[in-house]
C-alpha cells in the first residue's frame, strides 16, 4: 500500500487523500480477512521527484525525521489493520508507539524548521499487516535502523543540543526494537544481530540507514551531502 505522507502526520494525510470510511474499512477487512500475499496498491500516487536531505546536522536530522515518519506510518497501519491473533496488550502498545513516533517525527520537524526535507511518500508493501511474523519482523527491522541511525549520527553531529536530543530518543528506540524482537521471538531482545561482543548496540553509517529505510518509501532521495563515518 502507499500512503502519501505530507506532514509526517498520517491521519491528516488520510483525510487529504480521501481516506474515507469505506476505504478505511477496506484496510480493516484486508487486514482481517486476506492472508498472505495481501497486496495493497489501491491508492497509487505519482512518483515523486528526488528529495534532497541536506548536509551536516540538518542532513542527519532529516535522515531520522524520515525514519520516524516511516515508523509513524507503519504503526498507524498496524493499528488500523491488526494481524491475526494480536493481543490486547500488543494492540495498546502499537497505539502508544504510533503516538510516540508521531511525537518524534513532529519534534524533529520542529527542530529542523525551514531545513525540514520535503514530504515523503510511504510504500509499506514489504510488510503483510495481516501476518504477525511479517509485521513484527518489519517493525523491529525499522526500529533497528532507527537505533543504528541515532547511534551512528551521535559522533557526526556538531550541535550539542541535537546530540542531547538524539540521546534521549535512541534509548527509547532500543526499547522499541527489544519489544518487537521479544514479541516475535522471545529472548531475542539483545541478540548478536543487535548487540556485539563488547555490549555495543548498532551504530549505522547514514548511507546504510537511508538504503534500509528506502525499502519503505516511494520517494527517492539525494543523500550526496549526508555526513559519513
Amino acid at each position: 500500500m502507499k500512503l502519501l505522507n505530507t506532514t509526517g502526520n498520517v491521519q491528516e494525510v488520510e483525510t487529504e487523500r480521501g481516506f474515507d470510511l469505506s476505504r478505511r474499512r477496506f484496510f480493516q477487512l484486508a487486514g482481517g480477512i486476506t492472508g498472505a500475499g495481501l497486496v495493497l496498491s489501491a491508492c497509487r500516487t505519482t512518483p515523486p521527484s528526488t528529495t534532497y536531505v541536506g548536509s551536516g546536522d540538518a542532513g542527519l536530522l532529516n535522515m531520522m525525521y524520515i525514519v520516524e515518519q516511516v515508523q509513524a506510518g507503519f504503526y498507524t497501519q498496524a493499528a488500523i489493520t491488526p494481524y491475526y491473533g494480536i493481543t490486547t496488550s500488543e494492540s495498546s502498545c502499537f497505539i502508544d508507539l504510533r503516538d510516540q513516533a508521531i511525537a518524534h517525527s513532529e519534534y524533529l520537524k520542529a527542530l529542523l524548521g525551514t531545513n525540514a526535507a520535503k514530504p515523503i511518500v510511504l510504500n509499506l508493501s514489504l510488510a503483510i499487516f495481516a501476518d504477525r511474523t511479517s509485521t513484527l519482523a518489519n517493525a523491529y527491522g525499522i526500529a533497528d535502523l532507527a537505533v543504528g541511525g541515532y547511534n551512528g549520527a551521535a559522533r557526526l553531529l556538531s550541535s550539542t543540543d541535537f546530540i542531547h536530543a538524539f540521546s534521549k530518543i535512541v534509548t527509547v528506540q532500543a526499547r522499541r526494537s527489544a519489544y518487537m524482537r521479544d514479541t516475535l521471538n522471545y529472548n531475542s531482545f539483545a541478540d548478536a544481530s543487535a548487540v556485539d561482543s563488547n555490549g555495543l548496540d548498532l551504530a549505522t553509517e547514514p548511507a546504510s540507514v537511508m538504503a534500509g529505510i528506502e525499502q519503505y518509501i516511494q520517494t527517492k532521495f539525494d543523500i550526496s551531502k549526508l555526513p559519513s563515518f
Partner: protein
Amino acid sequence: MNFKNILREIEKSDPEVYERLSGRRQVLKSFGSKVAVAALPLAIGSLFKKAYGKTADANGVINALNLALEMEYFEYNFYHTANSLPDLIPPSSAYPSGNDKAGFITIEAQEKAHILLLNTVITTLGGVPFTPKNYSATAVNPLYVPSAYDFTAGGTYSAVFNDYPTFLIMAQVFEDTGIHAYQGQIPSLWSNASVLGQAFQIQSTEGRHAAHVRLIRRQPPISAPENPAPWINNNIPPTIALQSYYLGEDNTQQIGGIDISALKDSYSSTGTVPLLSATAAFDEGMDSATILSLIQPFLL
C-alpha cells in the same frame, strides 16, 4: 591560508580560547614564520587538541565514564548473583514453564562486556577505572564483589533473591536507573566523539535490557498491577516506595524548548500527542549526585 584570520574567527566564537592555551602572543610565536606551510594543518590540529581535547574536558569524560562503570559493576553483580541461584529465575519451582533464564544470562554477559570496555577506554584516556569496595584483582572472578553490595537494602527488599516478582521490580528499577545515569553523563562526553558514540551504543543496549525486564513484568504470569510498558509512560514506578527512581520522567519539555505534549497528533482525542506517549518517547537524565544517592542504599 591566513592563519591570523583563523585565530580571529576562533576568538570570536570562543573568547576564552587563549585561557585554554597560553596567551595569543605565545600561540602566534609558536606558529612563527618558521613553521612550514605544509606543516600548518597538523600544527593547527594539535593546537585545537590542546585547547579542547585535554584538561577539564578529559577529566570530565573520565569522571562520566567512571560513574557509568560504577553502574555496570552494580548491575553485573546483581545479575551474577541472581543467575547463580538455582531456583529464582524461571524455569523454577514457582514458574516451571518459564523460559526467562536465557535472557538474564544475555543481560549479565553484556553488563560484563560493558565493564571490560569501560575499563579499557578509561585506561586509554589516562584515567583510573572505578573499582567496587573490597575489589581484588586476583580474585577468581574480580568483577564479582558480593561484599560490596546488599541488594536487599538492609532488609527493605529481603525477597529480592527469593521471590521472582520482587527480583523483577529491582531489575527494572536498576535498568531504568542505568539509563538515567548514562543520559545524565552524555553532556560530559561532547568533547570526545568516539567515546560519545560508544556511550550511545552502551546506553541503547541498556534500553533493550530495560524493555525486556518491563515486558516480563507486563505479561502473564507476572502481570504487574501497574501494567508497565517496555518504555516509561509518565513517571510510574513499580511501587510507590520507588518513586524517586522515576522523578523527572514525566517531563514533556524537550531540548529546543519544545513541549512534546503540544505537538500535533490527529489520532489523539485532544489533537495533540497524549501525555503518556509524550513522556514515554524520551528517556530522561539524572545527574551523578542523584544517581549515587539512588544506589547508595544497596552499597555496603
